[in-house]
């Protein structure tokens, strides 16, 4: 079966069509992980590329993400029952004292579109909450967002909380937000800095690929 049609439906953000083709493919015994990777995740990569080339806007990307999700809903129970795991898990949140969530939400949606299981703790999140959730779900990534110069130092507190608990090395920290930079990430011993949601996807994929 040609999964190209599925990919196109995701790219166009046609959720109904996506559901339909996924069901059809399953009926034709295409392997669920092939549907996932070739049909859904690759489609989102294409969309991401188009965004980088100024061919689509975020709303279009989000429609694709929603369409992909529609497909995932069909696929997930089967993936779970056959033991296929998500490509990774991430905890995300805006740090304590900071209310900005639009950028954080975009990152969450884009990472989800890349096939990563997302746990969003919201805004004004304490170090303890990040640690608890990361341990609970055995996250691969911990994604921290801050938009104020006065809250970005709290990112360091989060990293330190993980150090104190002796689990720093089990997680990869990705940080972002307007006042944050590559060199700031280095200085607080976070692992990566991501400029925006699309870069975050690239970074996350790179990290998860290395982990394998």
């Amino acid at each position, binding site marked *: 079966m040609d999964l190209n049609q599925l990919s196109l439906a995701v790219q166009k953000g046609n959720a109904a069509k996506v559901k339909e083709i996924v069901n059809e493919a399953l009926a034709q015994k295409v392997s669920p992980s092939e549907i996932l990777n070739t049909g859904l995740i690759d489609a989102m990569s294409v969309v991401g590329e188009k*965004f980088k080339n*100024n*061919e689509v*806007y*975020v*709303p279009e990307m*989000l429609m694709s993400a929603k369409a992909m999700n529609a497909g995932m809903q069909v696929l997930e129970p089967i993936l779970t029952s056959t033991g296929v795991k998500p490509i990774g898990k991430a905890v995300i949140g805006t740090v304590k*004292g*900071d*209310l900005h*969530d*639009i950028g954080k*939400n*975009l990152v969450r949606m884009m990472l989800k579109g890349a096939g990563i299981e997302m746990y969003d703790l*919201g*805004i*004004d999140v304490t170090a303890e909450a990040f640690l608890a959730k990361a341990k609970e779900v055995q996250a691969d990534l911990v994604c921290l967002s801050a938009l*104020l*110069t*006065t*809250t*970005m*130092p*709290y990112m360091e507190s989060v990293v330190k909380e993980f150090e104190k608990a002796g689990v720093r090395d089990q997680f990869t920290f990705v940080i972002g937000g307007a*006042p944050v930079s590559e060199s*700031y990430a280095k200085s607080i011993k976070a692992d990566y800095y991501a400029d*925006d949601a699309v870069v975050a996807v690239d970074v996350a994929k790179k990290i998860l690929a290395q982990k394998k």
Partner: protein
Amino acid sequence: MAKTFDKLAYNSLNDFVYGSAPNPVKTKHGLVIGGGAIYPELNFTLPPMEVTAANMPEIKQIYSEMIDGVLKRAVELHAPGLVVEFEMLPEMTLVPEWGIEVNNILVNAIAEYHAKYGLKGALRSTPGDVREFKRPPVQRSGEIYQNLLRTIEGSAKGGADFIAIETTGGKEVHDEALVNADLTKVIFALGIMGTRDMKFIWEKIVEISNANGAQAAGDTACGFANTAMVLAHKGFIPNVFAAVVRVASVARTLAAYEAGAVGPNKDCGYEGVYCKAITGSPIAMEGKSAACAHLSAVGNIAAAVADLWSNESVTNVRLLSDIAPVVSIEQLIYDCRLMNLAKEKGYGVTFRDLLADSDSKWDPQAYVLRPDVVLDISKDLIKAKTPFLRTKAGAKLAIDKIRKAVDNNEIIIAEREKPWLDIMDNQVEAIPDDEEKFWHEIKGELELDKFIPSEYELK
């Protein structure tokens, strides 16, 4: 204090120019804003550090250093006057004492420089709208709300000239609407949620400010239209969409004036140009000399009808010359010098038009700030009778105006922007004029865990 605005404050485009407003405002040390000359408005914020009780001594020292540097340089450059804005960090409103202490440091420094050098300084104190700290936000009661009011009261009592704020009521819906470029929800968030919250909170602000010796200045659609601007700048949403959001945000910011605010409107509220056209109150604006805080497509045009010229915000990072706030005040003073001299020599309107023309063709967001466009749209916008209908009308008028300008090659936009004019037009078209009806239509599409309808008089 409720006011209604049903006609323009201007009869002629030639009067609509920077530095002059039909209803000027006078500060405690005698600076008249909108009285003929444009003055700098300087804003600063903390470098990377946490706002905690333990850090407060250092924080106060940093604000002292910044205000002293700024005032000293203003005197050296013979600036006749300036406004300083103290935009509080969230913690400084959550703990009113902290905000008030810094407020008073700034008040005192300004008074000292007035006494010593005759420098006419004024303070705009801007508490943070911390009501959104709780999710979903409780807008009209509770401890956070009370602390906001206490911070306003304390700042006014402490001697601030102006009270301003960036309110965020409606943002719970608007953020999602923006990233989805969904104009229907934008109009709901701005026109119903935003304007209702504005009416409520600004009546309080006006009452408390007036009772404590300060003037209620104005608001900004920062969390709405500026977020759109930033998203458009990153290529996330179309520039035409952001431009339409700007004009759709006018009625929301205008609600502060209906509640009794007198200006100057807050710097980052670019929709202030519409408020000035309608209310005649002076406004602060920010452009190229605020590039330290954010890049923009309106570097020059933002100054065309401004009464205060702002740097938006800088931390006191050290540059090669001096700390960044001092760099900013120097740039603003030179900008204002030039604009004021042009006016004195009879070139005010010419200079205004150069500022406008130099930017307006490159971005629809700049185009909708053109003084002629502003008067044109405002004239029709105020025909709508309610804040909600004015929000809807603003969007529609902006779409039409931009479409015409694109057709006439007065704006250059990317090919992929063009379909959005139709998309937006269809969305606005489908919105009913009745607020209740609109609410019941849209309810099902909203994430109802994100906000509390009753806080917006919605059932």
